[in-house]
């Protein structure tokens, strides 16, 4: 039986000057893309009970961006703040729910140990 796998987003980041990277940080579209992908991979990792999540693959570096479970909650806080800024409160509510799930699973693990 074939394992069900999440398709990982591939982003090529090419630049000549460091300032271009600063522009990238300021770009709402890019921020949303990365945050959405992080949220989606956190959901997947929780579902599969993984200790880390692969956000995206950067082909020109042949490297993947990986986040550890201990940082899931912090990343969701960032996403909540972003969508608050967008005044998308439906999305915020979804993220808060997911964050509670993450925090809950962390607490369970602590109690379990």
């Amino acid at each position, binding site marked *: 039986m074939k394992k069900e796998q999440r398709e990982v987003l591939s982003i090529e*980041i090419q630049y000549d000057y*460091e300032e271009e*990277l600063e522009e*990238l*940080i300021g770009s709402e579209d*890019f*921020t949303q893309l*990365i*945050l959405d992908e*992080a949220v989606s991979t956190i959901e997947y990792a929780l579902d599969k009970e993984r200790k*880390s999540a*692969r*956000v995206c*693959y*950067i082909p020109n*570096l*042949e*490297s*993947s*961006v*990986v*986040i*550890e479970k201990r*940082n899931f909650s*912090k*990343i969701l*806080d*960032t996403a909540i703040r972003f969508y608050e800024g967008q005044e998308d409160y439906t999305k915020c509510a979804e993220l808060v729910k997911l964050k509670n799930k993450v925090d809950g699973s962390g607490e369970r693990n602590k109690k379990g140990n």
Partner: protein
Amino acid sequence: MDQENEIKKVIEKILGSNITMRYDASTDEKKLKREFIKVMTLFETVWERQNNIDVKYGADFSTYDDPFFRTIEGFIHFCFDGVAAEAIIFYVYARKDMEGTIHPFVDPDGKEYMFDNIDDLWEFLMSWAEQMLKS
């Protein structure tokens, strides 16, 4: 490696958290090359650090560090063929002079090789290994 760190910082700023950049190379040779570059960069850094302390502060740590460098050299000779080991050691210690001029590595047949960067050294090591396998 610099580009990787710069991109890592950008993504960390966006996510507001630490991340790990995991190398997912498609071939064993690429993985090996990356590991080699990582180790060589460290080797070069400690060598340069020792020289910089001497130049900047006049503190000569060469006697103190000598056994440490001899250990590294010993492992290089242990892992690589004679000429390949010499090329690696030359790359760190003698490739660049005080003015920053790059000098060629000369193999036992008198052939010169310019190592402008670590990629050039890697290419030399690969071609040397091929020659060794053929002979």
